[in-house]
């Protein structure tokens, strides 16, 4: 595991010596600020509207967590769908392009140490992005009183989604020597993963057979959407955690197999 630390450290430093980390951080903060203000003003408008029209019942349903923070995190989740592939696109592809793949694979290092080291570096970047989000959310606590635990669960949801996306991005980076292809491939995969849920819902509405129902249930489970929504509403259950663990595990296994595959040919 010493090697893992060395590899993760090198990867993190190369994030910050190249423009990648800065570009992602700046974009994330800008989009975060923009969507935050957007959600905030929409929240204010809703409150003002219900007050003027004396719809007190509706007014009660508009609370900071469900209306403001939940919506904000959902938007940021889509931002992650584009930015995390930007972080992971070079992880393995640039090793192939540089020829440093030969250095790694001829060093006394196991494939798992390489894969974990690189994944941990990307995970650290995702953690930094989540911290930016936490800072923005902190502003709400200054001016209002949202549920701290529910908010924390939402942040955990964003973090876990980011970690799962980083695993998918590691895999796509390991199948090509071009970072650009890795980027588009992972955005594509993440989009599919996201769409599985809504697609399954549409299917469920039409399907009648129990067999089709089973398949759709699996698809629904595989989609990242439902699990994320559960977490952002403050529902931390083991099924959601198992889901993200499953996605991370499967894609890291695929990454290992793919990076190693140069040896099978």
């Amino acid at each position, binding site marked *: 595991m*010493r090697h893992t630390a060395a590899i993760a450290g090198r990867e993190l430093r190369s994030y910050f010596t190249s423009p990648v980390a800065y570009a992602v951080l700046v974009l994330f903060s800008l989009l975060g600020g923009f969507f935050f203000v957007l959600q905030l003003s929409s929240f204010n408008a809703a409150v003002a509207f219900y007050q003027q029209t004396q719809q007190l019942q509706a007014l009660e349903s508009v609370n900071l967590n469900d209306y403001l923070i939940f919506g904000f995190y959902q938007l940021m989740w889509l931002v992650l769908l584009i930015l995390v592939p930007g972080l992971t696109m070079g992880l393995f592809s640039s090793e192939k392009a540089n*020829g440093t793949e*030969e*250095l790694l694979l*001829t*060093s*006394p*290092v196991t494939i798992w140490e390489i894969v974990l080291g690189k994944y941990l570096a990307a995970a650290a970047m995702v953690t930094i992005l989540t911290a930016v989000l936490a800072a923005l959310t902190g502003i709400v606590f200054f001016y209002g009183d949202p549920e701290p635990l529910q908010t924390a669960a939402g942040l955990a949801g964003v973090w876990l989604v980011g970690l799962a996306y980083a695993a998918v991005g590691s895999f796509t980076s390991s199948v090509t020597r071009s970072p650009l292809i890795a980027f588009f491939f992972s955005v594509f995969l993440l989009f599919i993963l996201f769409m599985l849920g809504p697609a399954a819902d549409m299917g469920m509405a039409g399907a009648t057979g129990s067999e089709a129902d089973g398949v759709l249930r699996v698809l629904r489970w595989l989609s990242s959407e439902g699990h994320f929504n559960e977490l952002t509403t403050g529902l931390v259950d083991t099924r959601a955690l198992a889901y993200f663990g499953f996605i991370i595990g499967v894609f890291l296994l695929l990454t290992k197999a793919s990076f190693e595959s140069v040896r099978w040919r």
Partner: protein
Amino acid sequence: MIEVNGIRKRYGDFVAVDDVSFSAGAGEVIGFLGPNGAGKTTTMRILTGFLPATDGTASIAGHDIHKAPLEARRATGYLPESPPVYPEMEVRSYLTYVSKLKDVPRAKRREAVDRALERCGLTDVDRRPIGQLSKGYRQRVGIAQAIVHEPQVLILDEPTVGLDPNQILEIRELLASLAASKDGETGHTIVLSTHILAEVEALCRRVILIRQGKKVLDQPLDEITRDGGSLEAVFARLTLRGDVGDEVASGSDAETGAEG
């Protein structure tokens, strides 16, 4: 030090390396020759653990490359055809990183890096990003990463390709100093692939020639040149003519190849 027994590498129907065996004793410098596409790089990649052999075995410093891959790799320094460097990294931090990968103990790391920098003449550029260095210097960084963990065996794939005549001379001197024994210790055992026959004559004691994946010559250099023969003539004779046949001139390698 190096023991290779009938290694073979097949890609589908194509046999890149076909039943190659040889051995090298401690401190021996072997010139590994052959036309392009003969299987030199593939053989080196097998020895360094980058690729597994389809058949056959090999051991480095007594460690079987398939059964004890990590130990074998720890005893090997490898310079691939293009130096495996990260352009954005500084020379010193790159070598420190490599020394971590190669299991140089923490307490000895700085010393090992300084030593590699000095031997390769890189001390003055140790804070420069590798991407800004000239090709000759990048090649030196490639050699420095191969020797930073003081491996017993060095495998160098065309270390002077693409360099200008002055740089070639510098690298050649560097390799000669790596091969020479120092302070009573034997020098590195070196397998060197190259197309420059003068380089072989200057550095190597023994020549192995492969053609179409097969070993066609394995002979001490002085035997080849003893009767006024030249390496050029032998190379041309063995690689230009159609039939490989029974031209395997097995020299006295069995005797000289004493186990390290």
